[in-house]
């Protein structure tokens, strides 16, 4: 067990426990703060998986942007301290989701995956080079193979800005 494994266990325990707290805490504001903790530990897992750019993006956009938007939304709730309640289907939903998790992880673990071979294969040297500097190669891939989707995502974000402003605009003015 090396250092990466230890950090992975720590980050995944933090992610699991704070995700459970997001669901089970009664105070909606505290559960939004727990959501930020989940985002940050998922960003740490991205760093461990050689995805440095995605880790930084995760912390900037999720823990910085989306969490702030959600906290603004939380402030609209009237009695924040007891707002995060569950409906009457809580126990049956819990059993269904537990069954879902068990079946999903069973099938994912027992699947015969075709793994990358970083030791003795023809592409081992290139792949090691790739994982030592993923940001560089990711930029090439994003602006070469996926450039149309990249441009359309910017159009999507512009449309969302205009659309959300048009929705919340007061009609009487």
């Amino acid at each position, binding site marked *: 067990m090396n250092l990466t494994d230890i950090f992975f266990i720590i980050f995944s325990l933090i992610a699991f426990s704070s995700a459970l707290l*997001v669901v089970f805490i009664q105070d909606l504001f505290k559960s939004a703060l727990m959501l930020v903790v989940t985002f940050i530990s998922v960003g740490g897992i991205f760093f461990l998986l050689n995805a440095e750019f995605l880790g930084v993006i995760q912390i900037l956009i999720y823990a910085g942007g989306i969490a702030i938007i959600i906290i603004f939304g939380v402030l*609209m709730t009237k009695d924040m301290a007891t707002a995060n309640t569950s409906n009457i289907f809580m126990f049956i939903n819990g059993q269904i989701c537990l069954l879902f998790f068990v079946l999903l992880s069973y099938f994912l673990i027992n699947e015969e995956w075709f793994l*990358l071979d970083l030791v003795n294969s023809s592409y081992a040297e290139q792949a090691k080079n790739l994982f030592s500097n993923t940001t560089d190669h990711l930029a090439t891939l994003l602006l070469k193979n996926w450039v149309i989707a990249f441009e359309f995502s910017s159009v999507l974000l512009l449309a969302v800005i205009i659309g959300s402003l048009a929705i919340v605009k007061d009609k009487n003015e």
Partner: protein
Amino acid sequence: MSLESVLTLSAGLFAIGLFGVLTKRNLIAVLMCIELMFNAINVAAVGISRYIAPSMFRIAGSDLNSEQVDLILSGHVISIFSIAISAAEVSMALAIIILIYRTKNTVDISDINKMSG
């Protein structure tokens, strides 16, 4: 740290998010649980692109150029687009929630039944 542990973490986060979406009564709590599910998908995409070889690696074998090796990172690209779409989804959903709050003065799901017959 292996593919199985990353995928199990992703499945667990997804199941917690699914439980929250099915169970919570506040609209904003449902939105937060949807974000948890998005995060689980991103973890799965990045883990798969770190550990699993693309299908052309099985066929080509010996002669792979650097562009084809770059395709290992396709999972990162998928999760970048997923992050962009989830940012769009959150701002749109929050605009709709603000509109619901203005007209009905509540964000509780069980009070929003205007469309039921």
